[in-house]
């Protein structure tokens, strides 16, 4: 290539205590090129991103901006240098309005201070470009993960940066938003912006990027032109071995009804939702972002109060608004927002895994530490968790590994009805297959699984039945045989299904 890179990393390394998160990795970002970063969970992608954005200072190696070595003393320096970052986990100010989140520190000003009208207009313009229906004055608190991610994207775009780094921006998005985002990204690329894109969805990398760099265990593996390699090659580079089929849902005989939801309504959120899930069955709940799927799951599990309707588990009605009652009945919910709802970030891995099942490691009134640790280790190994020690706080784990801890916490309870909300969000291909195998095994063992997912291939590959929600209502139920991308999307966007 004859152009020179805007931003390069040269032989950077970064360790956290004993963990060598990034080892002598080099990377060149060229203007007008979208560069993909691939690797399993914990491979060091996010750490690399944080080095680029000045959050972490590399232990060794250099950062080059336009060929000149620079040192980023903090995120502010990187921003000044024209590097915009969308972090893996949304970093919003919950109390502030969406537009202030976007323009914090860069608010348009008039003579009388901040010019809110101009700010509102710019925010609306950004949202329009992304095709998002968000009110710029709305507070960020209460936004769904997807909406938060979209605000992050708008924020990064508003910087009009020379380098745009996106750490799994699509993990929480469904097809429609992803398409919009890619549209915007392509435009930026054509305008000469350099993109760094991270995703665990291989097809997205192939769709958007020209080049891909692969990391494994913090070390550089290869950098290829996308055109030159196949998906299988890429997976092999990431995982270091061949992978078997991605979606191994076994056919199982379905048993009696385990979860029965009748005419469930929570005013203003979802209306009249009825469905059932049988033992041994995986039912997917599909829909666009904001259709209300997570809200249904929350209500069923007793997090939110419902206004009308009923939920039965094994023929017994659940007390409303009581997660404890739901758990006692055999229900488990893997929530979509792992940082807020799934994990206590300051607590250790073992305590997090143990938290939902304290009763099972008790000796009399006391907790048996060996039993607790045994249980945690068992599940950590089964889910191939990448960790230093079980006593490390979960916040040092990579995003995907955090997700595994949430899964472990709930699977360890051996639930009879398992609700998983975006179970593989941010999980790498290898582990994703692992999670799918697990879900499938659980179903085979007689567990009723309700899976909420925004990833259509996952829905189609895993589900025995697909329920589709649109604007708070259940609009379609599609059997495994009839479920195709077209049929599901049609229902999800509100077009009637044949």
């Amino acid at each position, binding site marked *: 290539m004859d152009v020179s890179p805007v931003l390069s990393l040269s032989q950077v390394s970064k360790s956290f205590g004993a963990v060598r998160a990034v080892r002598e990795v080099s990377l060149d970002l060229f203007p007008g090129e979208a560069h993909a970063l691939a690797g399993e969970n914990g491979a060091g992608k996010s750490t690399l991103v944080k080095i680029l954005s000045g959050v972490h200072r590399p232990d060794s190696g250099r950062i080059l901006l336009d060929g000149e070595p620079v040192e980023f003393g903090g995120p502010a320096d990187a921003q000044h240098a024209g590097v915009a970052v969308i972090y893996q986990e949304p970093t919003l100010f919950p*109390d502030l309005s969406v537009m202030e989140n976007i323009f914090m520190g860069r608010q348009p000003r008039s003579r009388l201070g901040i010019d809110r009208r101009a700010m509102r207009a710019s925010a*609306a313009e950004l949202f329009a470009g992304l095709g998002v229906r968000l009110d710029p004055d*709305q507070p960020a608190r209460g936004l769904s993960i997807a909406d938060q991610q979209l605000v992050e994207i708008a924020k990064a775009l508003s910087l009009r940066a020379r380098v745009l780094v996106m750490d799994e921006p699509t993990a929480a998005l469904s097809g429609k938003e992803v398409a919009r985002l890619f549209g915007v990204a392509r435009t930026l690329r054509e305008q000469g912006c350099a993109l760094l894109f991270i995703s665990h969805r291989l097809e997205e990398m192939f769709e958007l990027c020209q080049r891909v760099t692969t990391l494994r265990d913090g070390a550089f593996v290869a950098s290829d032109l996308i055109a030159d390699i196949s998906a299988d090659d890429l997976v092999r580079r990431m995982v270091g071995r061949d992978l078997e089929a991605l979606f191994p849902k076994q056919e199982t005989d379905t048993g009696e009804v385990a979860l029965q939801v009748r005419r469930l309504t929570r005013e203003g959120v979802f209306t009249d939702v009825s469905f059932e899930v049988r033992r041994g069955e995986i039912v997917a709940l599909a829909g666009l972002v904001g259709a209300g799927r997570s809200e249904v799951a929350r209500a069923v599990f007793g997090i939110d109060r419902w206004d009308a309707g009923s939920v039965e588990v094994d023929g017994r009605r659940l007390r409303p608004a009581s997660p404890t009652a739901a758990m006692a009945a055999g229900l488990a919910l893997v929530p979509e927002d792992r940082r807020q709802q799934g994990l206590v970030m300051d607590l250790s891995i073992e305590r997090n895994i143990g938290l939902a099942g304290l009763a099972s490691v008790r000796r009399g009134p006391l907790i048996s530490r060996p039993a607790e640790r045994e249980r945690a280790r068992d599940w950590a190994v089964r889910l191939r968790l990448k960790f230093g020690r079980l006593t490390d706080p979960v916040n040092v784990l990579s995003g995907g590994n955090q997700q595994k801890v949430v899964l472990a916490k709930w699977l360890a309870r051996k639930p009879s009805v398992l609700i998983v909300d975006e179970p593989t969000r941010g999980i790498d291909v290898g582990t994703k297959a692992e999670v799918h195998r697990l879900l499938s095994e659980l179903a085979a063992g007689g567990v009723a699984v309700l899976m909420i997912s925004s990833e259509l291939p996952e829905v189609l590959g895993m589900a025995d039945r697909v329920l589709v929600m649109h604007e708070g209502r259940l609009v379609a139920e599609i059997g495994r045989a009839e479920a195709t991308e077209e049929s599901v999307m049609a229902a999800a966007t509100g077009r009637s299904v044949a």
Partner: protein
Amino acid sequence: MTVTEAEAETRRSNGGRRLVDRVARVRELGIVVALGILFGVTGAVNPSFLTYASLRDILLNSAIVAMLAVGQTLVVITRNVDLSVSSVVGLSAFGGALILADNPGVPIPVVIAGCVLLGAACGAINGLLVGVAKVPALVATLGTLYAFRGIDYAWAGGRQVNAADMPESFLSLGTRSVLGIPLPALVALAVLLVVGWMLRNLRAGRELYAIGSSPEAAVLAGIRVRRRIVAAFVANGALAGLAGIMWAARFGTVDATVATGKELDVIAAVVVGGVAIFGGSGTVYGAALGALLLAGITSALAVLRVDALAQTAINGALLIAAIVLDRVLALRVAAALRRRRFHDAR
């Protein structure tokens, strides 16, 4: 996106904004309602409560706490707290009074400036402890609450400065009225308006909210968190210093115990005023209204001839009632908002 779609979008967001605005206003409305009830009921029972002299006294009484509440709001918004204000007030009040008493010729503006600087220095100590050395604010300022008071005691050594020792021109600052409004209340009002404007219309002001709302995100957004936190503490300290010298002018009798325990009143005013104790939201106007409400309650109890022994209890009960009222209103609005969300979005 077509033009009409965009228009629809804007209109929708306008509708949403109106709603949000209304909710935001309700935050302070709760206290205004409480204030209205208080003044209405008390005035009905004893009309002398609503006379000019009485209202003037209430304004005077709330001026100092209101100013402290404004300063405290700056700190609380950043998810911190300053318990040491009462000790700073004491230090500044005693220091100022002592200098005025011992040096008869010293120009009053110089003394006032000195007190503000003294307060700012105390604030800077707090700010450095919290912002730079990362000591949790509650711990740091609980420590300096003791420490500053200790300095105050050591300085005073049992001495008391009486009104007779200070120049008349200084004392009159505490009671003089301009256009019928007592001077301390005018100063507090000016401070309130300036700080209120800065918090809303300056980037630095918005950044304080951002820091309180999510400290981690603030770092990632490139906000100079340390500097802002120190600045908030310094500003609060300076206001406490000003409040201290106002205290000396108003009450005339000053010793080392001035304002002991006032920090709880200030925080109560801030909390009643709807400032979130965990940062990120609330306005100085609310905090000042909170201070006014607390002063109003105290005056009303005296005017209503409530038994002295029962006053503390009723004070506490009314405080709780005000918080509960505010909360119930907020919950109602939130519920209404949820019900409307889908209709609105369509």
